[in-house]
């Protein structure tokens, strides 16, 4: 039976709405606030006000993986080197949270994954330490230097990374003329990335989606738009440059290696082929969040409490080997 791709994608978006996980979102916001206050207490006047930069701020979040990032902007003289800044923040967070969370060093951030709480929820917060480029300049330009802890695409381990104006990155999505469509497609690509364990950072997917909307005439229904963006990625990812919205000398395309880009192009090629060949395949690439199945499906649950159809996988009986 063929799948109505547009109906399915709408249901994917609905089932992944951030508002469906309000309680969990609130826990994240509370935890981020707690970490922010702890950092301010520890670093005092060396730190400007930490702020949220993740997908929630950009309205591109989806409820399977919260992108709660906390940017910690430090003053120029707070640390001699970016490496010392990174290490200091890691040591502080590790000491403070080692008994209640897994604290690990990530590419440019420090990841905190809190132990499962009484409701079975896991809260994750990424803290991104950054340092202003020159003394007292941050309040004027919002520019920060980050430390690259491990190889990040083409960017070498141990190098400094200028990540300018995170606030303007947030505005980049919010300010787009077709912001609703852009956000929908970004959310869908994040659903694909999450369920299929794919590599590109969300920020990369955001920028390349915006670029596709800028370069191509993208119209029609939601599948048409998603397909157009996937085609753009398939054809252009190896050559496209994705300047950081705040600092054009910063190319976000460099966060993927050439081989990662080949893989991403191939991912898009295969995904379009398979979905065009058999519309049911869209359900495998873009699954509905089974926790929040569409209403009509909930109604179709039979009297035994066993769900049928999209929401629940009933394994076929005829596999042989």
């Amino acid at each position, binding site marked *: 039976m063929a799948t109505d791709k547009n109906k399915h994608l709408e249901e994917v978006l609905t089932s992944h709405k951030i508002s469906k996980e309000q309680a969990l979102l609130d826990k994240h916001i509370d935890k981020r606030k707690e970490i922010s206050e702890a950092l301010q207490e520890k670093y005092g006047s060396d730190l400007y006000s930490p702020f949220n930069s993740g997908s929630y701020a950009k309205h591109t979040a989806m409820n399977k993986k919260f992108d709660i990032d906390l940017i910690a902007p430090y003053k120029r003289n707070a640390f001699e080197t970016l490496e010392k800044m990174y290490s200091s923040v890691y040591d502080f967070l590790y000491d403070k949270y080692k008994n209640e969370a897994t604290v690990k060093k990530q590419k440019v951030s420090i990841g905190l994954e809190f132990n499962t709480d009484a409701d079975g929820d896991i809260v994750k917060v990424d803290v991104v330490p950054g340092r202003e480029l020159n003394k007292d300049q941050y309040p004027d330009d919002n520019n920060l230097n980050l430390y690259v802890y491990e190889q990040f695409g083409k960017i070498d381990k141990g190098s400094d990374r200028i990540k300018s104006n995170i606030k303007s990155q947030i505005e980049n999505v919010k300010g787009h003329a077709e912001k609703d469509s852009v956000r929908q497609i970004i959310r869908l690509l994040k659903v694909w990335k999450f*369920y299929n364990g794919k590599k590109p950072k969300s920020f990369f997917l955001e920028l390349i989606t915006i670029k596709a909307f800028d370069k191509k005439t993208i119209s029609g229904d939601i599948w048409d738009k998603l397909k157009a963006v996937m085609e753009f990625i398939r054809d252009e990812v190896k050559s496209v440059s994705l300047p950081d919205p705040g600092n054009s000398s910063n190319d976000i395309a460099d966060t993927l290696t050439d081989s990662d880009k080949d893989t991403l192009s191939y991912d898009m090629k295969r995904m379009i082929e398979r979905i065009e060949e058999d519309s*049911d395949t869209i359900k*495998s690439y873009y699954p509905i969040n089974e926790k929040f199945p569409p209403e009509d499906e909930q109604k179709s649950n039979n009297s035994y409490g066993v769900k049928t159809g999209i929401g629940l996988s009933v394994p076929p009986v005829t596999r042989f080997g």
Partner: protein
Amino acid sequence: MNRLETVADVVGTIDGVAITSAFVEEGEVIFGSVAISFLGSTLEFEVRILPAYPLQFHDSESIRFVNKGLREYNHVNADGSICVHTHHSTNLKEKLLFDFASLKEWIRKYYVEGERDAHYEHIVVPQNDSLVLLFTSINHTFSKGEFGFFTYSNLAVGFKRDQKIETQIVQQFKIGKSSFDCGWSTVYRNMDKKEGLFVFIEQAPTQNTRFAVEKWTDLEPYVTQDFLKFLNLMSKRRYNEAAVPLLVGYKIPNEEIHWQCVMIPASNFPNYAEKIPGTTNYIGRFADEEMLWVSTRNCSPKYFFGRGSFAPEIVSSKILIIGIGAIGSNVATTLVRGGCQSITLIDHDIKEPENVCRAEYSFSAGVNSKINELSHHLTQISPFVEMSLSDHFMDIAKITLNNSEWRQILLQRLSEYDLIFDCTTDNDVAFILDELERPLKIFTMSITNNAKELICAVPPRLYKWMNDITRQLQTGDDDLYNPNGCWNPTFKASYNDIAVLVQFALKHITTSIANNSSPRSFYLTTSTEDGFNIKLKEF
């Protein structure tokens, strides 16, 4: 014109060729001699034309050009016959012209220009078809003059043409108090052993450049007095066997060593002590006796799998195969023939005679545990594969999955593998494998009825992908095989139907691993509309 007249007529017309002894026919064989004047040299050859000529016989040309005086040159056999590489023809006249042209090409390349081939040719040892010793690499660097004992085991008795031939494997070298095992797998290392002697002489013991010395006296310059003293001691021992093997080792290019083997009659060692005139001292000597060389083969993985193996990333992987029915047993056999050396098999099932027609099992093993029979089969194929077996691992896994402590141990055990092939068709197994941390490489494979499709799913969400794809391909086909008696219905497909898909899938999987590409789920679909063909659909 008959065959003999044609030969004489054609050879007589070839430029630079003079018939020095007229061609005659004895039985079915034609004999004669020629002198070939070419590029300023004149060389004599006896010519022997065998009955099959101009057709080949046992993969060899059925014409011989013999000159024993040329044995030191490349591509000359021990009997002085030249190895000519020539063109095929079924026409007597044309074939003679081709073969004399090839002989002239040999004269130019190897006699006149003294060309050396880039690849190393082993020294020529007189043929003895009663015994062959197989050796493999060991973790020891031999130095010149080293000698001692080695152990060997009887592997098999076979036939080479009409003669019985025994195959033995070299097991271990003992030097003083140290011993060094050959790199065979445990099954082979545990075989019963006998003892022989070895000496490492560094340089190949040759005469005429490429031929092994034939008399013991000719070996004397290559060995030390210490070795001869050792041999003298050994000659006083009693032996159960009629002959004692002596391995003679030497270096060949690329930092490798090679072993030849000569048999010493147990009751008549070829060495003796000779008094040095005017002194009370003795010197060890070899007697002027013929040496009885036997064959050896270097069977180290480099050569054993030399004709074709999987990429190093796959060969060096620690591999787990869960489920060894038609698909799993084919995967296992293919990996072992491709050089893989660490394989664990998990399956609780028992092989029944009905399994034999499409899986890697034998009627002769009767009703048998699948893991035991397949493991035996795999170790028979390769002397390098180390097998681990479990018939209950997945049962324990299912029982203990909900116990957090056991679950941790279970996942840790599975994470020790580099490559996992799940060929169980058991959704629970797919579910458990989905729990493993990446970047483990896991492939869950199954086929649809009549082997119309093969499905291979990989993490993440291996369980969902496998079931989604299978559900999409499912045609509601219930045309299953239902034999008489109490036996579960099963799918219909022959060994050929299944193996062709498994081989295609393995080629695709191993290519992607060798290219360092991220594994993807895929399925193979077959059709017979325009001849049989297979299409790959990757996700």
